[in-house]
């Protein structure tokens, strides 16, 4: 995924930031050091209390600087970076963060739905004009479009047709073809359970991480991934209701109060398409069958064709 030289260099850099005062590594053995992620969209390593992230190739330095400044400005909502600026390493922008403890991937039933919803409600309520700027657009729709491009590049698959049909039925703003004009709240842009950490680890409050997709846009997008899981029959109604109710009670966006579905419909469709498209692209590349959860997303795309978004009450935007 990464250039061969990047990962060792990033590991050394994280260690250097962790011990810049002492010089040598004085962490008690064994040092909690690990590669947390190594994907096309970012490589993340940890050394002790320091996490270093090499952002995707082609990341805009000005936009990343603004997003870092926003994270520094909202310390109770977003995890603030250790350093205000990105460094450059092997032609990649690298940022430094304190370590926080994530949601246990083996115990998703302990997911902090209420905390996630409350953080989103507070994020969406931030007055955008008081933030460092100019804020770039939230990248949610652009990521959905990239997922569809990846599906098209993956080659033929029987599940592609219903996914592409569902995509074709979305309004242009949700496909990143036109700017989002109907809303300009501060949004995270890529919410999932991997985007929450507790700081201090294990005991501190939950905070949102990963500012790569942060920007202005429709706040419904940040609720749309859990909404897509719920609508696809994967997330139990009980957990979806906990998440949505906590968001509403924490003073979330007005359009998502009482009946949120007119505002959620297009973003939830887009996230269903995005997740299904990535699943099919990955399954095609690996030469494997879709699993049950992935089939459920494709089935949801298939059902969307029968109910165009313009028929969804009040959803035309």
């Amino acid at each position, binding site marked *: 995924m990464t250039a061969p030289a990047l990962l060792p260099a990033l590991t050394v850099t994280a260690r250097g930031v962790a011990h810049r005062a002492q010089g040598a590594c004085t962490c008690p053995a064994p040092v909690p050091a690990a590669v947390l992620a190594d994907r096309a969209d970012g490589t993340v390593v940890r050394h002790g209390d320091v996490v270093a992230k090499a952002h995707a190739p082609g990341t805009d330095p000005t936009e990343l600087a603004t997003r870092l400044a926003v994270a520094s400005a909202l310390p109770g909502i977003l995890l603030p970076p250790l350093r205000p600026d990105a460094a450059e390493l092997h032609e990649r922008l690298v940022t430094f963060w304190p370590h926080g403890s994530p949601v246990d991937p083996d115990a998703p039933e302990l997911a902090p739905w209420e905390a996630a919803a409350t953080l989103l409600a507070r994020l969406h309520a931030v007055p955008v004009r008081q933030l460092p700027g100019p804020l770039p657009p939230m990248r949610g729709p652009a990521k959905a479009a990239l997922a569809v491009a990846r599906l098209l590049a993956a080659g033929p698959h029987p599940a592609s047709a219903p996914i592409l049909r569902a995509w074709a039925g979305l309004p242009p703003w949700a496909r990143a073809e036109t700017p989002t004009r109907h809303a300009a709240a501060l949004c995270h842009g890529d919410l999932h359970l991997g985007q929450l950490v507790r700081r201090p680890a294990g005991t501190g409050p939950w905070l949102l991480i990963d500012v790569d997709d942060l920007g202005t846009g429709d706040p419904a997008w940040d609720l749309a991934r859990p909404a897509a899981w*719920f609508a696809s*029959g994967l997330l139990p109604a009980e957990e979806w209701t906990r998440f949505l109710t906590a968001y509403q009670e924490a003073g979330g966006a007005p359009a998502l109060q009482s009946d949120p579905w007119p505002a959620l419909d297009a973003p939830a469709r887009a996230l269903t398409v995005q997740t299904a498209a990535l699943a099919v692209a990955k399954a095609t590349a690996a030469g494997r069958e879709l699993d049950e*959860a992935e089939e459920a997303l494709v089935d949801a795309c298939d059902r969307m064709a029968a109910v165009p978004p313009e028929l969804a009450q009040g959803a035309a935007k």
Partner: protein
Amino acid sequence: MQCPKCHAPMHTYNRNGVQIEQCSGCRGIFLDYGELESLTRLESQWQQQMPPAPPAPQAYPSAPAPAWGAPHHGGHHGHHGHHKGGFGRMLFSS
């Protein structure tokens, strides 16, 4: 077809080989001749494999859902759903 109760369009789902029509408006379910018996047969096969479960509190979604949403079955919520297929991994990925 149209819902006999509220006249909204009905959509067809296939559940374990049984065609079910569900209304996009009131979420009511329409079964053709013999489908209830098919479902009862599937249920009894299921119960033979499984220890008896407490009765479902309701058969309709407990939360508002879009018309294209999958039917949610009350009483089946719980954490086993997370481990179905790759949903556990999906919860943590972009």
